[in-house]
């Protein structure tokens, strides 16, 4: 999975509404109307969210059916999970910052 695709995936996931939509779609396909139900947002807003998710490859939408139900696409999802399992990198980067912080602090105190 390319970094650019990951960026798209993660950018798509940055929004809580979109995460909730995905959680719903993990249970099975749904139409825009069904997806909009739990949210206090308009149908066009939900459609925009779906476009972002579609572009990120996280969902696919049927071209045939009138209501174009959306369903989850597993591949980028799994890739993201795999990638996320190396949370180690993030922790390492975080520890680099902690190290820098402690060094700064040490200099100030001396």
């Amino acid at each position: 999975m390319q970094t650019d695709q990951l960026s798209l995936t993660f950018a798509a996931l940055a929004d809580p509404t979109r995460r909730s939509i995905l959680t719903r779609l993990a249970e099975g396909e749904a139409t825009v109307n069904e997806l909009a139900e739990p949210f206090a947002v308009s149908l066009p807003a939900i459609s925009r969210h779906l476009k972002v998710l579609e572009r990120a490859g996280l969902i696919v939408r049927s071209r045939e059916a009138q209501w174009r139900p959306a369903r989850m696409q597993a591949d980028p999802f799994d890739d993201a999970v795999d990638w996320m399992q190396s949370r180690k990198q993030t922790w390492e980067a975080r520890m680099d910052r902690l190290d820098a912080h402690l060094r700064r602090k040490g200099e100030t105190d001396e």
Partner: protein
Amino acid sequence: MSDSPPVAGDREVLITRIFEAPREQVFKAWTDPDELAAWYGPEHMDAPRERIRIDLRVGGRWELTMVARDGGAGEFSIGYTIVELVEPELIVMRSDLMPEMGMHEPTVVRVEFHDHGDKTRMTLSDGPYAAGAHHAEAGYNAAFDKLAAVIAG
């Protein structure tokens, strides 16, 4: 970089670091909001002091929100409950469940601080992270607190 060992298995992150600071100070970096605000947020993100809440006791809360710098989009809150605490040696925290986001199982961050005089050896474990496809949802959501860095980058 570091000589930390690789990820143990595929469910848990393990990190060991030596810091050039006494143990009390490293412990404080994790548990004093003023300190935490100075380093926790990833590049291009801040962890504002006023949105950090730490109640340093077993059962107490450890919470912060990462906010995109320069008015960028997105913020992400993480929350833990402290389950073990030995000042200044050990802190163990259990992540919040976010069932509405598909995170049905907690992860545990365990940080040990070993005294080496003017240095501190810190070990950190974080997990378990789901590996199987049927756990994808949980793994996905468990990772959200790290997404911020990618988004901001």
